[in-house]
């Protein structure tokens, strides 16, 4: 699939309902990368858990998702405009959502978006279907 931009950027209101939008956008991108459906489901779950962790950690009005991709991997950065201090908190790192994202993806990092709101970045390598 060649008609896919290298980076996809989505911003939605910070509500549980709009997490569904993020899930679907991510699933759409993953599908176009020819990721097998079990991996698509895993990134969908990962973004859902990451979003619920961010929303739980700090009150926010916006959630932003950036999906970058290269030949080997899908890189997803999810951030909110909330004020989380400290970030990542010990509570966040010991939370179930964090463990789940960690378990579902190949790399996970807690960061700050442009030095501001809390962000979670994860990477999922895609196994090529023609391997």
């Amino acid at each position, binding site marked *: *699939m060649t008609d896919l931009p290298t980076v996809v950027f989505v911003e939605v209101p910070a509500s549980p309902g709009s997490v569904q939008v993020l899930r*679907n956008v991510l*699933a*759409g991108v993953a*599908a176009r990368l*020819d*990721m*097998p*459906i*079990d*991996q*698509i*489901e895993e990134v969908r*779950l990962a973004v*859902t*858990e990451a979003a*619920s*962790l961010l*929303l*739980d950690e700090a009150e926010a009005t916006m959630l932003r998702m950036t999906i970058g991709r290269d030949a080997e991997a899908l890189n997803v950065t999810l951030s909110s405009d909330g004020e989380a201090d400290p970030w990542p908190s010990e509570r966040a790192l*010991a939370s*179930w*959502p964090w*463990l*789940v994202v960690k*378990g579902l993806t190949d790399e996970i990092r807690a960061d700050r978006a442009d030095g501001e709101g809390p962000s979670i970045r994860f990477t999922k390598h895609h*196994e090529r*279907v023609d391997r």
Partner: protein
Amino acid sequence: MSSRTGPSRPEEEIAELFGRLPDPSAREHLAKEFLPLAEYFARRFAGRGEPVDDLTQTASLGLLNAIDRFDAERGVPFSTYAAATIVGELKRHFRDRGWALRVPRNVQETAILVNRTVSSMWQDLGRAPTVAEIASAADIGEDDVLQALDALQAYTTDSLDAPTGDATTTAAETIGSEDRSFEVSEEWLSVAPALRDLPERERTILYLRFFEGKTQTEIADELGISQMHVSRLVSQSLEKLRKGTGA
């Protein structure tokens, strides 16, 4: 017509139609031919709180499944086979009643088609198929496949995974008491209380997935269930936990 629900065409013609499958027009003719059978069973299941239209829809799906799976070589008349399949579908409808989301009917139909396609492809390929592969095998659009997969994740399989009954058993105890040589990790113990209310099988799957790092396929093999089912159970149990913790 030999009976109220029997076909109006002669048997040879029916056999000829089956011979032409998977030709879509033959399939359609057969579906029309046996529709009264589906309607008959739908009516028999009416009056139990489900709209007759929904039941007819379910029965018709059962009929289509029967048409697709019927093997004349086995020597069972189609109407017998179809009746069993239709009744099975209706019973499942009552048992599994309710999609977690309100799923439009055409999506449900597509979901059933996609579910079937995925199961057979997963087996043939030895890995999960891609959306493009499913779309081309089922002859539907990629967006339809994505939508169907989404709907399938929402489809409740709770009835197949009833709780163990002993509500006081903690997740950690259950895992520990199973005949597995689990090294119960500290991480697991710290989250175990949150998993207490999940059915045992879902806990086991979460353990295998997140603490032993097993893939969905490995878990499916280990538990003797389909990969789709594992995927669904993982999604479902995570969903329950999110709701449970209010996060």
